[in-house]
């Protein structure tokens, strides 16, 4: 285990050093600040904005959980995750297509309407799960729920 760890860490330092050499040799020094800014901004944006928002959504879901039950809320969260990821994937294409490209064979999809369809499917899934949850939590089944 110790040997394996040593090898992996040494290998990692070596590979990182190759990255550093590529930066030194192939990237003009006036680009370093831009690269460092992007790497730093990526950390700040993720840790300071994206991750806290996701935590907040999770806390909200935990509240809804008490009313709707675990299964439905899990489905709602899963559907929203799929919607969020598809948005992240489609957003660059959507913005780039709005900016335009002199090449008519790129950005040929209708990204806005595809995204709208994706979110409509997410909304339907959420609605079905919510209705299922409310039904389960309704008085007729409340006794059964309590027994569990």
């Amino acid at each position: 285990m110790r040997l394996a760890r040593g090898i992996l860490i040494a290998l990692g330092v070596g590979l990182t050093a190759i990255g550093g050499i590529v930066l030194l040799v192939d990237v003009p020094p006036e680009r370093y600040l831009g690269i460092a800014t992007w790497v730093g901004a990526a950390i700040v944006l993720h840790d300071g904005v994206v991750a806290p928002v996701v935590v907040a959504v999770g806390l909200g879901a935990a509240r809804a959980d008490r009313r709707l039950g675990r299964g439905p809320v899990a489905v709602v969260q899963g559907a929203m995750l799929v919607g969020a990821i598809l948005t992240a994937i489609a957003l660059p294409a959507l913005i780039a297509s709005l900016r335009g490209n002199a090449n008519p064979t790129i950005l040929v999809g209708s990204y806005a309407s595809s995204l709208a369809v994706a979110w409509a499917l997410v909304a339907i899934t959420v609605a079905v799960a919510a209705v299922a949850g409310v039904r389960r939590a309704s008085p007729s089944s409340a006794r059964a729920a309590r027994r569990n």
Partner: protein
Amino acid sequence: MSNVTGRAAARLAERIAPLMRRAHDTADDPVKSPRTAVVVGRLLATAFLVCFATGLYSHVLQHPASWLVLPTRPVELYRFTQGAHVISGIAAAPLLLAKLWSVFPNLFTWPPVRSLPHLLERVSIAVLVGAALVEVTIGLLNIVQWYPFPFSFRTTHLALAWVVIGGLSIHVGVKLPVIARHWRRRDEDRHGTSDAAGRVISRRGFVTAVGAAAASAVVLTAGQSVDALAPMNVFAPRRMGVGPQGLPVNRTAAQAGIAPAAVGPAWALEVHSSAGTRAFDLDALRRMPQTDVVLPIACVEGWSQSASWRGVRLIDLLATAGAEPGGPLVFTSVQAEGAFARTTMPPEYARDPLTLVALELNGSVLHLDHGYPARVIAPGRPGVMQTKWLRAIEVTA
């Protein structure tokens, strides 16, 4: 004096510690267990390794070393590797966010630094996380040809790839005992507290949702390179069959600044070799024996499509000019500027009977955007190396 600053620091720490503990507890969730990090982490590591290997292969093809003989078979090899590069890069986006989600509470570890090794580990994690996020982001931006970043894509993407893989290796080395302990489901995962219940979603539920997100992102984009998924392609920048002669182009003639006069009746393809210079005009090329091949155009941006090409075998053309491809060939385009206006072809491709100076595509004369009057098409090479609007071929012995 140092006593004063020391006391001030201690008091500050006293204030911050409970805040950090609260942030940690707020962000925490029983489902964010080492087992979850291992399960998601190895999927992400697999995606990154595929990206790294296929990306390096693409760089090697674009900057061939003279001592390295590159494979010309299977003809769809580059189509496969570069398609896999972009597909695994897209899959890496949800996996990376899921991995970060599962370890986010660790950001609020208190005290922030316990020792020098701990400091080094946290720095290496910061570099790994930042570089990985940028790598995936600029990859997604590059395939839509949108460049809002103040640096060159190709070299930065390559440099950061080494940094990410290096950081990954360090990270796996540091965490190896934890990874080994949680590689397989453990008894406590199976019974009792099993399947880490979580605030809302269970571990298996979480992994399923992340899998669904990654799968839907892949299925809805991979159709730009995988024939079977073409009908499901709604979010990819390219679509199979969309373009002149039913094939997309990376750069149009107008974008490349091709003047119609430069490819008019006066156009001729020159072959320079130790045997001298021979010029072939379009009629001369058409009078030579024509060969039909089916070869893909596979772009570095990940899209690809198979097509039917017709033209003169390169090896026949060279023979007619009295040239023998002993060393690398240099192809020059009518295109005056651009990184790929001049490309180098290792001799193994020139000797391949499938390599053509193509004059026709999918049953008709090459469209200007596809490189009229003549372009190179060779098996297993990136699209940018399939030089369009050919002007000259230099053969070295």
